[in-house]
């Protein structure tokens, strides 16, 4: 545990050093390519962190408090979107694993759904779901779910098919029905695959929520903050960087939550022992 903490701090320090070192070196030689390095294009790390602890407006709350609340709002959208997307993705995989015909028929469209840029889909979702008595943020969750379900479907499908053929014969010899085979064999066998997908989806759901806030014109989340600080980048670049920092932190939190879930659920041989 201690070693891990040391490694974590060391890597963080290394990254900061790299950032500041590049900045110092580039400014010293007046670097113009690929971009001019100055405090606007590449602010000091301590200025970015410092911006978090300055008032967000005159006599207002600190920026970190504002961003914290916005992060929580986005987290809610992303969490609902992740749950929705993962569930839908899992159910699709369960249906497809039981029918080769459906799998061959539908898989191309499921793949195609992900080649449509999310920015093109998002406004439609907002239009479809807007004004139905649903809270505005729910549209954002649906957009996040759209990004989330795909890795889950693909990995769950693979995982559900990963069961040992002889284990299937064994279940067959017990006259096990599809339901029993699914829950006692296929799903447990799919768990490592599912969690690999959840890790991708968890971070994708945060990205989806942030992007989804833009066409939904939702100001309460990190997407709104990014849009806002983008406009004032010339005068206060550190605020956009600080917001990015918070967004990245949120994504890492989602990832860690999935990792914790995996530790609880998946118990099997460590690869090097098996």
């Amino acid at each position, binding site marked *: 545990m201690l070693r891990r903490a040391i490694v974590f701090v060391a890597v963080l320090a290394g990254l900061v050093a790299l950032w500041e070192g590049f900045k110092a070196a580039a400014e010293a030689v007046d670097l113009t390519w690929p971009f001019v390095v100055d405090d606007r294009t590449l602010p000091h790390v301590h200025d970015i962190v410092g911006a978090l602890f300055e008032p967000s407006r005159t006599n207002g709350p600190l920026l970190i408090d504002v961003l914290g609340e916005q992060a929580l709002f986005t987290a809610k959208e992303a969490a609902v979107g992740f749950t929705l997307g993962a569930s839908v993705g899992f159910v699709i995989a369960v249906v497809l694993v039981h029918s080769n015909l459906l799998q061959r028929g539908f898989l191309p469209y499921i793949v195609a759904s992900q080649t449509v840029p999310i920015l093109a889909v998002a406004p439609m979702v907002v239009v479809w779901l807007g004004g139905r008595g649903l809270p505005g943020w729910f549209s954002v969750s649906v957009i996040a779910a759209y990004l989330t379900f795909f890795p889950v479907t693909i990995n769950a499908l693979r995982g559900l098919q990963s069961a*040992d053929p*002889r*284990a299937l*014969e*064994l*279940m*067959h*010899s*017990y*006259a*096990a029905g599809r339901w*029993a085979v699914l829950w*006692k*064999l296929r799903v*447990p*066998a799919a*768990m490592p695959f599912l969690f690999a997908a959840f890790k991708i989806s968890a971070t994708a759901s945060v990205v989806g929520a942030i992007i989804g806030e833009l066409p939904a014109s939702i100001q309460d989340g990190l997407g709104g903050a990014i849009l806002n600080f983008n406009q004032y980048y010339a005068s206060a670049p550190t605020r956009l960087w600080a917001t990015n920092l918070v967004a990245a932190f949120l994504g890492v939190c989602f990832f860690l939550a999935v990792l914790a879930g995996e530790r609880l659920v*998946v*118990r*099997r*041989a460590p690869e090097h*022992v*098996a």
Partner: protein
Amino acid sequence: MNENRIVVELRDVTKEFGRGGVTALRGIGLQVGAGEFVTLIGPSGCGKSTLLRVIGDLIEPTAGEVVVNGKSAHQARRERDYGIVFQDAVLYDWRTVAKNIALPLEMLGWDRRRRSERVRRMLELVELTGFEDHHPWQLSGGMQQRVSIARALAFDPPLLLMDEPFGALDEMTRERLNMELLRIWEASGSTVVFVTHSISEAVFLSTRVVVMSPRPGRITGVVDIDLPQPRVAETREQPRFFELVTAVRDRLRAGGAEAGEASEQELIAVEEGL
């Protein structure tokens, strides 16, 4: 138990794979009586594993009839007449030893208390008491196979089908498990159909050895093993044991010569099992 009762009856069973493809089994006729220990032996490709799967209704024969306990093989499987052991233990990694053994009992809808009582008894039978909370990957190959045997026997199936269950184990472990299997067979009074390519294992374990030949897979001889019961370690040193080993080997050779197809290499492979 009525000793004359027929447990398995095969009438003119043929199995072809693919459209007009390989004939895995041709014209197989065989009767196995209650309490018998019948071993199928032959070189690779002789269809012994296929025949075992046909008996267990895991593969459907192309032609012919399979009657198990007076029912169709399909009906027998529905009524859970089979306990199956494969060459690999095929344990579920995510389940403990106890829960692996309890798997078929869950299928039968036994309540928790009845399950744990039976699991305790099975662990005693295969001498793994104290390992109930271990996971499969924490056990040696021999121990894993004992768990797999305990799982197969847990629900008292009238017919035990074993497909080279000790094939992946070292010679010492194999001989010890041979003794254990005989002890379990005597204690449970079940009928066993066993597949192996080891002549000595076949002679040591069986009441009858069925010799098979490849292309097409067929029965080329049956050797009654009249060694006294119970079999003990010294059984392997009796002159009669060697006579029977020779008899089985001669049948195998005859089958190969008669077919004129079985390669010398395959015969050598069979004999190396000794």
